[in-house]
């Protein structure tokens, strides 16, 4: 196929994708309105607005002036739970990163097909498919469903939650890492090899220094995502802020819920700020 016909083919594919996307959107709204029983209009009226207002009032406490001042002390006493949640996120990102760093090199296409080492390797090819499949499987299963499965084997607590988060993010990080290996500049590897360096020397003096800044960016990005998800995984695996969240939901203690949400937002903001400053450090 020449270049022009490839381009035409691509354009055709693009058109088909966009049209099928639009059809999917229309169909999905038909489906959602069918599921709600065609009662969109009833949802968006004045009583809904007052319901939302009621919930917000409950979250800050029925009588804001008295309850908020009392609750400040209580809020501060929840700091151990927030600390536990932060610990959980760090534990899970480290599990994910260690597992991903051990396997990412096997999941890159240019390692086994000979574009780096000069000859294709059948054993590495088999490993490539196995590792890729593991990445896809762990990446596709959401953290919460993993937590539901893992809670069958482990005691409820920090460890179970971190394993659930860690395994999911292992798939995500592994895929990102191996893709950056595939997009790597191979010129410098070739020149090192022609100068007679061994495989491990190429790995440590050329591949890793090239990739580390990118890996750090991915790591920080996933940490931001994880700190948001730890609370939700805690709902299932009974640890950190999530446990209290679930309990106060079940007891209809909405004021406690407001305090927990406050801690949650504080944690997210702290991690976001930390990550953005670290990212600047990496970039410079």
């Amino acid at each position, binding site marked *: 196929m020449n270049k022009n016909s490839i381009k035409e083919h691509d354009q055709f594919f693009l058109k088909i994708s966009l049209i099928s996307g639009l059809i999917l959107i229309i169909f999905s709204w038909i489906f959602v309105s069918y599921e709600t029983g065609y009662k*969109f209009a009833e949802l968006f009226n004045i009583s809904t607005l007052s319901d939302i207002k009621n919930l917000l009032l409950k979250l800050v406490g029925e009588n804001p002036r008295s309850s908020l001042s009392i609750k400040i002390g209580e809020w501060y006493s929840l700091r151990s739970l927030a600390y536990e949640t932060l610990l959980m996120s760090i534990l899970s990102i480290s599990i994910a990163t260690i597992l991903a760093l051990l396997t990412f090199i096997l999941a890159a296409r240019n390692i086994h097909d000979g574009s780096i080492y000069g000859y294709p390797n059948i054993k590495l090819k088999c490993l490539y498919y196995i590792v890729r499949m593991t990445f896809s499987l762990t990446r596709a299963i*959401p953290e919460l469903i993993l937590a539901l499965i893992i809670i069958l084997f482990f005691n409820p607590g920090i460890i179970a939650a971190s394993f659930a988060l860690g395994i999911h993010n292992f798939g995500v990080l592994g895929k990102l890492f191996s893709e950056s290996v595939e997009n790597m500049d191979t010129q410098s590897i070739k020149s090192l090899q022609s100068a007679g360096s061994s495989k491990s020397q190429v790995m440590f003096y050329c591949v890793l220094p090239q990739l580390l800044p990118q890996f750090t960016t991915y790591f920080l990005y996933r940490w931001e995502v994880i700190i948001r998800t730890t609370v939700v995984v805690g709902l299932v695996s009974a640890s950190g802020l999530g446990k209290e969240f679930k309990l106060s939901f079940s007891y209809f203690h909405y004021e406690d819920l407001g305090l927990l949400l406050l801690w949650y937002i504080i944690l997210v903001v702290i991690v976001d700020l930390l990550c953005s400053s670290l990212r600047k450090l990496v970039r410079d």
Partner: protein
Amino acid sequence: MHTGGGLALLRFFTSIVEIDVSPEFLIICIISSVKTVLYAVAALSLSIIIAFPLGVLASGTIISNKSINTTLSACTRLILSMLRSIHELIWALLLVSAIGLSPIVAVLALALPYTGILGRIFAEQLQDVPQQPIKVLLHNGATLSKALIYGRIPFAVPNITSYIFYRLECGIRSSSIMSFIGIQGIGYQIQLSLLDLQFGQVWTGLLCLTLMIVLVDAWSSKVRRIMVN
């Protein structure tokens, strides 16, 4: 690990050989996978519609008065980051306790954080366009809104579209966990089978989910490759 945990782990992994591929269960799985995808698409389309004006405001490329512009864009950025920082399941729990259980609640709960994410991306992409053509447009007497419509948006659309396709994959994952508030879908089936300790059926559900994600990923990465080149 608790007593019996190791045994349960072993049983879970050995039950992959008794994976449930009976036609009845496969049909249930396929129907619920389609439902999951439809919820994700509905939420994503809603969030695109809300995120676009917010993104334009946050990018600060439409209002000429400088002080109004900076305050407005800072406010929009704050709203977007608030929407983004709360996980979709927590939005769902809050909305259920406010409005009540309805499929539209799931769509809204998915759409709110995605609005935050997409709005930020829209704003960044609108700012990151090549500056030369915009300057030419402004120099020749185009207003800021005209420069936005004829200069910035056409440049930003390929990147934005490819990002939306990437988000579709995440949306499917998120909509499958809406089972926690009782919304039908593949996550609901997995949860039911897990509660019955039918590990064979759990594996079927997990593989269905994986297959769906892999297919969507292949589709979106092809679209992205064509779009960005």
